């Protein structure tokens, strides 16, 4: 009898898959939130499915080996076997119920945030994250994309009393307290995004034109990387953020330093006409999708703050003085010289000389410390007036006196 190589291969593939499963280092990393129920459901599914996989794979290999062709032999003639088929149906149904039941229980938890959860809004745009806390009153002011402009990055509805004390964070980093359930509300300025921290397990898309949500309770103090999990354009892979799960004290201190919407409005200083024009042109050209102007480090492109000074290290190892010639060249031919640590997805800009000059005027004005008066609205903490609202900010929805 010829050896049926395929039987051996099927056997080895089945066995190899099991071995790989147990030896691979690639499994869920340590959970950082309350969603053990997800891990448990995955575990149950692994067991049910794993048993089925091994049983079916080995059975197939064995039977292919055992019932090989022999001239003149007839196969067993058995068109159907109602009893066996109904037994298999029942067994499969039981397996499905075992997997589905915990899943549905967990889903019921997932869509019903606990009543003591505080709210955090994640506002996403191409290609970075911004955050908003409801402030002292614990209620978000209404916000809509139609109100968004350079001085109102969150699109806060003008005149909404609930919005004045909302805390706006334009930095990519957010801090949240450990062991407190948080209901994350998601809004998007442009396209679909998805706020995702692998160790938290939970995620949800941000959809423009509506508000979506999910909730979790972080249980480990640690810095997490935030990813965008829904394709959102050519810089999707660079859309990262940071989520720091910290102690309650650290969180309160940090939050007190953040600017409120009222503070942001008060702190906005008008630019010179040339610089303002340059800012509008740069905005229309989409520059701010990748470059910050307040010193925030983004993976998509270098910040424009203090770009007019000093030197820069390029990815070919050389060092370059950042003079006007360098910046003009970088705008007109972005692929020529690339700053170390970045991949360029920048498209070649078609700007007139006047437009280019306006942008350069604007960039020249972006200086950090001495030129504080000229920094834009996107600069948060320095311009924040330490109003009483900010001082009284604690965990939203919680009485400050209990803290």
């Amino acid at each position, binding site marked *: 009898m010829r050896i049926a190589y395929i039987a051996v291969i099927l056997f080895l593939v089945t066995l190899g898959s099991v071995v790989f499963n147990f030896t691979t280092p690639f499994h869920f990393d340590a959970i950082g939130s309350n969603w053990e129920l997800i891990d448990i459901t995955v575990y149950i599914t692994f067991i049910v499915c794993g048993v089925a996989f091994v049983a079916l794979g080995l059975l197939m290999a064995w039977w292919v080996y055992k019932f090989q062709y022999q001239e003149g032999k007839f196969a067993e003639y058995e068109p159907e076997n109602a009893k066996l088929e109904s037994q298999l149906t029942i067994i499969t149904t039981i397996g499905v119920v075992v997997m589905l039941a915990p899943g549905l229980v967990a889903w019921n938890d997932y869509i019903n945030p606990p009543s003591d959860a505080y709210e955090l809004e994640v506002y996403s745009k191409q290609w970075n994250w911004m955050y908003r806390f409801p402030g002292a009153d614990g209620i978000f002011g*209404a*916000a*809509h994309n139609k109100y968004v402009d350079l001085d109102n990055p969150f699109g806060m*509805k003008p005149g*909404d009393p609930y919005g004045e004390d909302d805390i706006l964070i334009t930095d990519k980093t957010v801090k949240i307290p450990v062991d407190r359930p948080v209901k994350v*509300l998601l*809004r998007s300025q442009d396209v679909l995004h998805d706020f995702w921290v692998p160790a938290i397990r939970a995620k949800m898309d941000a959809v423009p*034109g*509506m*508000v979506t949500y999910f909730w979790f309770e972080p249980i480990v103090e640690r810095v997490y990387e935030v990813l965008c999990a829904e394709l959102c354009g050519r810089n999707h892979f660079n859309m990262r953020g940071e989520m720091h799960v910290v102690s309650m004290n650290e969180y309160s201190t940090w939050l007190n330093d953040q600017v409120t919407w009222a503070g942001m409005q008060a702190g906005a200083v008008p630019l010179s006409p040339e610089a303002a024009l340059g800012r509008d042109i740069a905005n229309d050209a989409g520059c701010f999708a990748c470059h910050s102007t307040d010193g925030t480090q983004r993976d998509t492109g270098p910040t424009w703050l203090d770009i007019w000074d000093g030197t820069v290290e390029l990815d070919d190892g050389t060092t370059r003085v950042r003079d006007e010639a360098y910046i003009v060249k970088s705008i007109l031919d972005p692929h020529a010289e690339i700053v170390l640590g970045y991949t360029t997805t920048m498209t070649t800009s078609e700007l007139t000389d006047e437009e280019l000059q306006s942008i350069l005027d604007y960039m020249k004005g972006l200086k950090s410390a001495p030129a504080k008066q000229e920094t834009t609205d996107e600069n948060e903490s320095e311009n924040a007036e330490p109003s009483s609202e900010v001082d009284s900010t604690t965990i939203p929805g919680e009485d400050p006196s209990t803290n």
Partner: protein
Amino acid sequence: MATEGQQHPIKIYFLIWLLLFVLSFFSYLVDFYHLEGNLRWFLIVVFMLLKAGFIVAIFMHMKWERFALIFGILTPPLALVVLMFLMAIESDYAWSTRVVYMGEDPAPKPESPSHYKKSEEEKGH
């Protein structure tokens, strides 16, 4: 292939023809008399379904087809009923998030068409 065709007394076509006119006229009257609310929607849907039913059953001869065909044609659209039902639920949900979080007006007043305004102005003169 053996085909007997669909031969039926002409009388029934005239009857249905007439009925369609009458039902269309009724649904027009619903609008003409400005019936509002549930009664309006109920009447519109009833007249619509009656008309659709007559067209399919008599004009398209489905009444006289064998049930094998009727069954084959009328069951798949049930999937559309599921789609429609779920989309209605979800649209309401999306609308509510717009009202709650985005500060949209839950009950905006529709504006009158411009020509309507013009004719009113003319009356005023």
